[in-house]
Every structure is written in structure tokens, then in C-alpha cells.
């Protein structure tokens, strides 16, 4: 079997696309690839229009099954190829786009999903939303990006290495630390004073020491779903007088000033607090990323919704319990056994790529007070209940194995693709008969 894969962002364009809307599709493609390679031959194409059908016809002539996996939202998935095409997409809203807009018929995802006849997504929440719009037996499967194996292995190495002294990270980029910053440099214009951050300065290596109870979140601040305002303000309120609580925000974005500007202002706005906030903007080499994971006690997510959330899955696979809401894709892998759950409520919103901003779907707003409770309860467990922490940590590894291990992905994809080919074959035979 030949599996052709493509994402609009690829290894050549990833650097300038960091933090842009479609960039995460490339990471998903990368995570899928080793599993796909166990199921067939894999060819990554840069130009689907030019390459896919040629490859498909070659397969056809050999009698080899062939499928094109387009790692893209349905409205950016080609529908006129001869090769069977499946979109592999992430989605975190209660309904899928079911009307055309802005003159593009593919914006009605039902058009694309009907034309493709099948699709792959990452969560049962999205499977349900798709089947709601299509039919109850529309062929769609939830296959999360299989990140577990790699991170569980790292976690196993780290097991038992509970840090007694501060962990030292080297970061090529910017580090903003609430302990050393003059927060008044980020206040309203008429009150601003003190030394800010020179974003134009050349990139240099920074050393960062982390200790105490460290909470970490990895996200793109330009992504409107992340709700970092609540994450930060509830942290500052919960740990106003707690010196050894630290929140590390590892930020992914293509522009440092844009990424940090608003967050720095909120560091000012939330003062004063004795807890520590660290913003990391820049690249972490693997050993340093591992040290960040090692230093972390909890991974934090306060999003309005997630298609799957790779960083959350990665940290949990490493044995880090979460502070997060059990909504959207997170329903599949969060429980009270591996996370301090934040309550949330639904709210009307628009599909993110709808320029009309027409209200058509729901997202989930965190309950701020319940986030504060989750922070406090998790801190208490980290400090005083080592057995409970160890249990949650083990549970995180286990649940994520069931959710996003390569074995799970391989098994699901194998069954799904086999059924697909079988149905296509049957359909063809019927047509020929």
C-alpha cells in the first residue's frame, strides 16, 4: 500500500510558520509518519496537484492500493483528485461548518467530507460532531498523534530522579522572569518606568534555574483559544503568598514582541505576588526540553477547546499530571485520576476561519474560581501527598498510553484503512457488475 502524505507547512517552511494557524498540522504529520510506515510505503509530496494523481496511477497499474492523507482542514483539502483523499484534521468545536461562506463551497465541510467519503481526526468529540452533521455511520476515526512512546520513554528515564536541587536549563532566546523584571515597565503608558525588554537585541544563551513546584504550559499566545489570561491571573491569586510556586510559559510564535507583549502587561496587572512566572521564548534543545519536563510537576491547560493538544499529551505521557478542563479532545484522556479538573461552561462562538464571525458553534469557558481551586489542590498534593502524586503520575502515563501510543494509532489506522479499501473495492465491483 502506498500512503501519500502532505501538509501545507513542511520542514522547509516550519521556521517561519511557527505559531501560525496551520503549523501544527506539520507536527501531526511528523508524529503519524512512523506509524504509517508500518502500514505501507509512505511518500511525502510538496505539491499534491502535480504529484498525487501520478503516483496514484502508477499504483493503479501495479494493482497496489493507494491513499492520499491530506493533513489539512477539510476546506483546504483537494477534492478533485482521482486518488482517494482523506483529510486528517484537528477540530475543537461542537459543530463542524455546515454552510458555505465567503464564496468557497468547501467551507461547507459536508461537501468535502462527502466527496472524500471518509476522514481522520484526533478525538471522539470531533467524531461525534462530524457524524452529527453527516450520518451516524460516516467513516471517520479518531487517531491522536502518537506521541506517547517517545515521551513515556523519557519519563521512564526520569523516574526516580526527583530533583532535590534547582534544575538548570540553557535557552537560546528570551527569558522573562517575574523575579528579576521591573514590572512597571509594562504598565499603562502614563505610568510606565523602568527597564523593559530589548526585543531587537541579538539572540543569546540564557541560563534558567527552576525549583519548587513548577507548573508548565506550552502554547502559542497568538492562538486565541489558549485563555492564558485566566491561567496567569488564577495562578497569581492562588499563589500570591507562595514563594515556591512557579509557572513556566513556553511560548511558540514567530515574533517575540507580539508573543510576549500582552503577557508582560498581565504580569504587571496581576501584581503583587510572591510566586514566580517565567516566560520562555526561544528554542529548547532536546536535553533542555527534557530538563524542563523533569523540572515540571504539573502541565497546565486552560483552553476554550483542543483538537488534541500535543504539549499536554507529551507532558502527561512523561508522567506529569495536568491541571486542565475536561472538554473537547481532552475528554478522551483526562480524568480525576490523572488531572485536577477545571470546571467549564459552553459559550456561543464562530468557526475560527469564518470571516463573517457568524455565531454557529460552542466553545468552553473555564470557571476561574475552579481553576484557583485546582491550582491550590494540586500544590497541596505536590507538597504533602507524595503517594497521591505518584499515583496520578502513573495514571497519566497509563491513560495516555491508551490514548496516543503508536500501537493504538497503528491498530486503528490499519482497521480503518482496510475497511475503506474493502468498501471501495466492493463499490467498484458493484459498479462494474
Amino acid at each position: 500500500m502506498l500512503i501519500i502524505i502532505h501538509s501545507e507547512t513542511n520542514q522547509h517552511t516550519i521556521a517561519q510558520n511557527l505559531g501560525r494557524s496551520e503549523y501544527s498540522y506539520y507536527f501531526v504529520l511528523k508524529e503519524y509518519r512512523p506509524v504509517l510506515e508500518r502500514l505501507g510505503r509512505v511518500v511525502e509530496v510538496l505539491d499534491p496537484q502535480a504529484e498525487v494523481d501520478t503516483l496514484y496511477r502508477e499504483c493503479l497499474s501495479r494493482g497496489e492500493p493507494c491513499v492520499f492523507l491530506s493533513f489539512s482542514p477539510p476546506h483546504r483539502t483537494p477534492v478533485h483528485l482521482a486518488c482517494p483523499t482523506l483529510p486528517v484534521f484537528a477540530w475543537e468545536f461542537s459543530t463542524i461548518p455546515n454552510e458555505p461562506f465567503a464564496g468557497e463551497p468547501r467551507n461547507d465541510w459536508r461537501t468535502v467530507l462527502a466527496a472524500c467519503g471518509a476522514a481522520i481526526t484526533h478525538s471522539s468529540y470531533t467524531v461525534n460532531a462530524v457524524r452529527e452533521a453527516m450520518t451516524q455511520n460516516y467513516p471517520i476515526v479518531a487517531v491522536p498523534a502518537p506521541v506517547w512512546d517517545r515521551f513515556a520513554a523519557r519519563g521512564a528515564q526520569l523516574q526516580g530522579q526527583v530533583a532535590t536541587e534547582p534544575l538548570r536549563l540553557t535557552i537560546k532566546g528570551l527569558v522573562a522572569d517575574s523575579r528579576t523584571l521591573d514590572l512597571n515597565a509594562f504598565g499603562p503608558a502614563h505610568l510606565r518606568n523602568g527597564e523593559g525588554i530589548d526585543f531587537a537585541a541579538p539572540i543569546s544563551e540564557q541560563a534558567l534555574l527552576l525549583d519548587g513546584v513548577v507548573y508548565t504550559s506550552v502554547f502559542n499566545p497568538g492562538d486565541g483559544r489558549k485563555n492564558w489570561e485566566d491561567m496567569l491571573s488564577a495562578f497569581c491569586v492562588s499563589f500570591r503568598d507562595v514563594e515556591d510556586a512557579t509557572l513556566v510559559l513556553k511560548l511558540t510564535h514567530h515574533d517575540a514582541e507580539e508573543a510576549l507583549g500582552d503577557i508582560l502587561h498581565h504580569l504587571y496587572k496581576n501584581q503583587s505576588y510572591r510566586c514566580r512566572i517565567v516566560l520562555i521564548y526561544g528554542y529548547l534543545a532536546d536535553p533542555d526540553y527534557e530538563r524542563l519536563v523533569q523540572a515540571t510537576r504539573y502541565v497546565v491547560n486552560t483552553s476554550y477547546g483542543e483538537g488534541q493538544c500535543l504539549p499536554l499529551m507529551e507532558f502527561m505521557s512523561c508522567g506529569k499530571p495536568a491541571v486542565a478542563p475536561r472538554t473537547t479532545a481532552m475528554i478522551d484522556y483526562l480524568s480525576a485520576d490523572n488531572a485536577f479538573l477545571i470546571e467549564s461552561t459552553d459559550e456561543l462562538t464562530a468557526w475560527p476561519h469564518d470571516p463573517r464571525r457568524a455565531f454557529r458553534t460552542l466553545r468552553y469557558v473555564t470557571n476561574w474560581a475552579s481553576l484557583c481551586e485546582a491550582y491550590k489542590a494540586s500544590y497541596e498534593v505536590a507538597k504533602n501527598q507524595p503517594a497521591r502524586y505518584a499515583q496520578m503520575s502513573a495514571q497519566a502515563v497509563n491513560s495516555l498510553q491508551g490514548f496516543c501510543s503508536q500501537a493504538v494509532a497503528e491498530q486503528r489506522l490499519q482497521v480503518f484503512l482496510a475497511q475503506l479499501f474493502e468498501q471501495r473495492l466492493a463499490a467498484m465491483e458493484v459498479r462494474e457488475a
Partner: protein
Amino acid sequence: MAPSSWDAMNFILYSDVNDSSISQSLGRPEYSYYFVLKAYRPVLESLGRVHVVASPADVDTLYRQLLVAGEDSLFLSFTPPQKTPVDLECPTMCVVAWEFDSIPDEQWDNDPRQDWTQMLARQGRVITLSSHTARAIRRAMGENFPVLVLPTPLWENFATIRQQMLSTPVNPGTSLAIKGCIFDTRTLGLCADALIPTPITPEEEAALAAAIEAARPPPLTLKRRFVIARHYLRLWALNLGHEQVEPVPRVKFLYNWYWEGIRDLMPDTLHGWLEQRLPAVCGALPVPVVEPVPLDLPDTTSVVETTVDGVVYVTVFNPKDGRKNWHQLITAFCWAFRETSDATLVLKITQNDLASYYSELMTLLAQLTPFACRVVVMHGYLDDAQYARLYQAASFYVNASRCEGLCLPLMEFMSSGKPVIAPDHTAMEDYIDDAVAFVVKSSEELTIWPQDTRIIYRTLRYRPDWGSLKSAYENSYQMAKARPQDYQRMSVAAVERMHDYCAFAPVQKRMADFFALTPMSADATPVTDNASC
């Protein structure tokens, strides 16, 4: 013989807004203080003599005159503490309308008056509108600090409305009139697709490209440069510009020659230098400011009418008031009733400037289309009779605020026998519960004290739960349609609740007890108003 305490007590009242300035103040923050003053006045009149001063500067003069006559005075300042004078001889007490869980207990902008704890400590006691604010004050001032919680008495004002009709859950049809204008989603023709420009067709695109090509100046050949130079330099040399109808300054021809004929020949490095040395010739013209197309707003000078029926939800608010959370109030309504044609939401706007909210509101409604339910926006001024029709028309009143110091319209509609949809936070904890309302859940969130220029998070407000608000709409509609007895029970409970909370007698008793005064008589003077919260 010394006069007994009650007939010697004089209340001197002041608010920044008064009878003559109120019409310009519709929707401004100090506006609600005026309504509180007006509502307290009859209670104060029943306990002593009331003097309303036009300026705080008049207070001490009056105080001294009364003192000479052997009478005591108390200055009640219906202004926020930081705006209340600190140098008066007359005993002063603030009436504080506040909706946050803490009061300012630090100063900023080098202004000690911003620290309310200093102000209140100096005055020694305070009046506020809700138990929620009283708690915030006591947390800062100590448990024993004297705080009088005094809602505005208004129950009696609605006696006529209560007598005229029994509240009906499903309105058979009420005509509403207003001096101003009415927007009705049934006739506005709003559409989400109209929110973005129609994508141009390939033919239009080609035509546009051709037009741009045609408009492009001919290439700058040597000959062309010569023609340009000759043309402008001639005009410059002869100074022919001053003969034109609108005289053109002579230097303008050199400017045109430079920009059209030779600028592209100069190296980039020279452009800046020339611009500095010869700004009149080589400086770029300022980019013309594109004036936004003026809104086509309707006439608001005449009385207009509409009829509402079915299950009618009413809310009264100022769209520029950030506490009101009106986007969610509307989105939850339209989502809950997107297939329900006999649900109507009436928005009575308390904001004079239509242009200040028109686009925002119309965009929101367009984003929500299509929906079968109906939204009616009433902009303008309602006289008492017109207001009475609005009270009658309502099946329910809706509040979805983040915080409230009191919320007069909510109390007014409840006093008229209307069950409500509202959260039970801040001031509303004093009178909202399941017996009278579909309670909207909410959770806390951080916010600033609104007057704090440092914009630092110092206090809490509430985040109403959208899902719970939507359910409240659905459940209330169900009740209106299917369980009229339950509706009646809730209506009666609302009237009773308001009687206990804001009838004249209980409010008078609270005030009399606080000041240790004896009422002179028990009659109530009705006050009419067009109050916002």
C-alpha cells in the same frame, strides 16, 4: 426647651447630576446616583428636613445657618468617596453605589482621596445599597464599622401597574411606543453573509485589472520626462497657479515635477536628505485620511410604535456600560430561540448617542442570523405611560450582568410582578433566588477598580455562565407556555419579595433605626423614573 432630635435633623443632599442636567447624563456613571438621591428623598423627608444643594460649596454655609438656629445637619454626598469634599465642617456621610468585592484601600496618582478607607474612616459611617458592598466595606474597615444597607424604595411606585393587570406569561399583543426609533430584526433584513464583501467574480477581477492597467501613467521615457519637466517648469516660471480658481502655490509645480518626473532617478539615500532640505518640493504629502462613511441613522425626533406578543423578555441597559454583558444576553437568547418564533427580546437602551453602539449591536445581530425569534431595540425616551406599557408587555425581565450595585430596572420589573432571569451575585444576592428568578450561575473573575488608573487587578466581579443563561431562557419559556400557574406563583413571589426589600416602610425603618430617629409620618411619595441600573 431643646427640640427633639427628629425635627431638628436636616439632611443636606448633593449629587453631581440634578434635575436640570439629567437629560444629558443618561447612561453616565454618576447618573444612577441621581436616581438614588431621588428615591431616598421621601424617606429622608419623613425623618427630617431635606435640602438639596447645587454645589458642595454651599454645604457649610447652610450647615452654619442651621447650627445658629440650633439645628443639627448631616451632609449626604451622593458621589463616590474620592469625589466627596474632605474639608467640610458639616458632618458628612457618603452614599456608596459599588459592585465589587473590595473597596479601594490604597492610593494612587498621589491622591489620598482614592483610598476609600481613609475617607470612610474620617466620616465614621456610610450608606450603601447592598449587603455585598457592606461586606466589602466591613472587610476593609472592620466588622463594627457602621454601615447602613439601604435599597432605594420603589415598590409603591408600581401600585397602579400591579392593579391594572395580572401578569400574563404569554402576551396576547401590546403596542409599545417611544420617542426615538425602533429596530426590529423582523424587518431589518440582517444577514451574516453581508458582513463580508461579496467575493469578486473572475470577470470582475479581469475588468478591475484592465482598469488599473489603463490608469497607469505611460512609461517614463526620456521624451516623457522632458514633457513633464517642460510642463511643470513653465507653470512654475510663469507662476500660473495663482490665476486658477483655487490658487495653486508656485512650489507645488516643482513638487509635481520632482515626484512625477525625476524622483525615481535619485538614489534612495538621497530621498531622505532631499526631503529634509527641501520639504516643500521633496517631502511626501500626508496620506489623505479616509473619512468613514457616515452611518445612515434613522430620525429619532418622533414617536414610533411596534407591537410585541408571545413570550416577551425585556431588558434595560446602556451598551457603553461594560458591566452589562449584553452580548451574551443577546447571543444566549437568539441561540436558545433560533427556531422559536414567538419569543421576543426587547432591548430598551439608556444611551442617548445612537451612533456609539449602533454598528456594534447590528453586527452582533447579523452574526446571529438566521433566527426565528425576534429582537426589538428601543432607542429614545419613554414617558411614564409608555414605560408602563413596557412593564405590562414583559413576560420576564433579563439581567446577565457581571456585577451590580443595585439594578433599579430589575427591581422595577419585579415590583410590577415580573419573574426574572438573573444571576444572584453582588447586589442581586439581596433579592434574587429560585422563588422569583431563573438564577443564572456565575463564577468569579479578577477585575480592576474602575477608577484605578494603574489598571491593576485588585478585586472580583462575576462571569455569568452562558450555558446556564441559555437554559434559563429555555426553562422560562417552557414555564410561560406550559405552566401558567407556576408563572403566577413566581410573579406573586416577586411582588412580595420587592415589598419586603424596597417598600417605603421597611426602608424607612432601616434608616430611622440607623440614625435613631422617629418617623414624622408614613406617607410615601411616588417617584417616576427612566432608570438604568
